[in-house]
């Protein structure tokens, strides 16, 4: 995507976020606006870094790191960033992602039903195993370190 396509798509996403925040949580558009702008700026900067830096890192990694850097105590804007982002409810940015995601796999429904019960079992095990494996190791290390 060109830069202006990314900006356009992000603006649409921002409107979607404000709509979800209003419908679901009664937060007005004006109240949501600063937080939405903060999130969109970080998202755009992340996409920009991805385009410039020749590393094989996913864009989400850049966005996450930029968000972290903006909010740690040494960042001069951390107070504003945290406060305005807090106005955006946790699940508000996700509804639009879900809509797009559903549409993007809507041509695979037939394949899904054809792939059969064996792959459904395996997919469930794959998800469960990934989660439990991580939880187990995290629990062990945290216990050894005495954090919990």
């Amino acid at each position, binding site marked *: 995507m060109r830069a202006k396509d990314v900006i356009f798509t992000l603006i649409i996403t921002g409107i979607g976020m404000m709509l979800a925040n209003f419908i679901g949580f009664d937060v007005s558009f004006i109240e949501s606006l600063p937080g939405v702008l903060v999130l969109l700026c970080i*998202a755009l900067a992340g996409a920009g870094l991805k385009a410039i830096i020749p590393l094989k890192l996913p*864009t989400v990694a850049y966005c996450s790191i930029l968000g972290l850097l903006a909010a740690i105590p040494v960042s001069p804007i*951390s107070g504003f960033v945290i406060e305005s982002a807090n106005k955006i409810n946790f699940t508000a940015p996700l509804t639009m992602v879900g809509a*797009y995601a*559903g549409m993007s*796999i809507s041509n695979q429904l037939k394949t899904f039903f054809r792939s059969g019960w064996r792959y459904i079992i395996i*997919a469930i095990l794959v998800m469960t195993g990934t*989660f439990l494996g991580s939880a187990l190791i*995290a629990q062990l290390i945290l216990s050894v370190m005495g954090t919990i």
Partner: protein
Amino acid sequence: MNNKTYAYDSLTERIKTEWIIYLLAFIFILIADKIGQIRIPVWKGTFIIFPIFFSLGLGLLTGPNVLKILDDKRVKAAGSLVSIAILPFIAKLGINAGANIMTVIEVGPALLLQEFGNLGTIFLSLPIALMLGLKRESIGACHSINRETNLALIQDMYGASSPEGQGCLAVYIVIGMVGTIYFGFMTSIVAALNWFHPYSLGMASGVGAGILMSSASATLAEIYPAMADKLSALAAASETVSGIDGIYLAIFIGLPLCNWLYRKLEPKIGRITKYGRREQE
């Protein structure tokens, strides 16, 4: 950059093609967030249904298989919109992690080491896949959580039409369809069992799939409201680390481990059930 080919010649052309996608998305947000969050207690867990499930479900109906509102070109376009639309959410998680940076640093070693736990899936799923009669498909299906990066990796290494590629694609599709709802529900069951500290569950949520992580961490935030910020910070940190190391874990440990286990196990448990024997030549 100038030699790249783009899906559209201009932004205007993009809007002319995609306006229906945006319109549908806005309508689905209206419906999904109006319904809001629904909690259904089931046994020890709670099905917490977030608006994202409704919008995803509605989205599924729009395609060429059901309502035929979207054609294949627009279905593909929606896919590239997902990867942009998720970015603000990831930025929000990053901010959460930054705001709780002391918690993240405090659990740093656990955060890094639990990444290897993502390989735990291999020991659980590969033997059962073999029992169910999968052959080389099981390598692709079981080597990781099978999201976009892994799909690209397997297609690159084995080819899209190879058995490994087909196994990977099948699990990719199933997780796309049912993953969001299952992952949140599973998280609530595991939390109810009380085996793990909430911190461990927070870290385990970051598996290298944004939508699964969000489902798990939204569920955890509901179950442990007092710790919600810290838990989503840990989930975000873990998800970021997974996003970076996931592909290397798959190449250097996951796939070799799968191949090794396959050689050991297939001759034994690959033939104990009739499914296993039937598919053997």
